[in-house]
């Protein structure tokens, strides 16, 4: 059973993926699994423990299940200020 999602990429993750966002159909069981799929497909380069993940504009846990129609963002280490 797979779930359709919007995935957002920022900064060097966006550079690695080549797009700022994409629609993804995933059968992963949680957000960590989703990242593994996308990293395997596109060589995103960042080890997952160095990233944070957000769903629909709020930080989430990597073991949270995928929600149909949600917006998932992978957050590389920030560098504002």
């Amino acid at each position, binding site marked *: 059973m797979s779930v359709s999602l919007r995935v957002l990429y920022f900064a060097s993750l966006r550079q690695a993926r080549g797009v700022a966002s994409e629609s993804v159909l995933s059968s992963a069981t949680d957000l960590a699994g989703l990242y593994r799929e996308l990293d395997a497909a596109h060589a995103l380069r960042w080890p997952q423990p160095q990233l944070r993940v957000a769903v629909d504009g709020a930080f989430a846990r990597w073991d949270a299940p995928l929600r149909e129609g949600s917006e998932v963002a992978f957050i590389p280490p*920030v560098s*504002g200020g």
Partner: protein
Amino acid sequence: MSGQGAVLRFRLSEQPLSIELLRAPLSHSQAGAFASFEGWVRDHNDGRAVQGLHYEAYAVLAEAEGRRVLDEAMSRFAILDVRCVHRLGDLAIGDLAVWVGVVAAHRAAAFDACRYVIDEVKARVPIWKHERYVGGDAGWLHGSG
């Protein structure tokens, strides 16, 4: 969700910042101390000559997380008010990238809160810096502070 009612203490701005406008809402008859911090674009970083830079944010999350930081500052320190604005887009050497302003009755709380806010914003708010170097190359920075 941010628990601060109508006051928007944290903002992102695509436009250049005016110190005067940023300060205006912080005047307060009970305030004896005002501490502020500004991050300016330096002409060098890690030994490389910088030509200019660009900030991008995950705006919806950056605003929520920025407001959370300022709410924390309001509850942890004996301050009257605090604001923070972070620039997005293209910036040149000397431009103001981030501004934090705090008013308090006494100076210790103003300093402590100001430092807390800039430390937390730099550590937690999803904003990224892209530097262009003299010579033509460029790159994203990630979390070295």
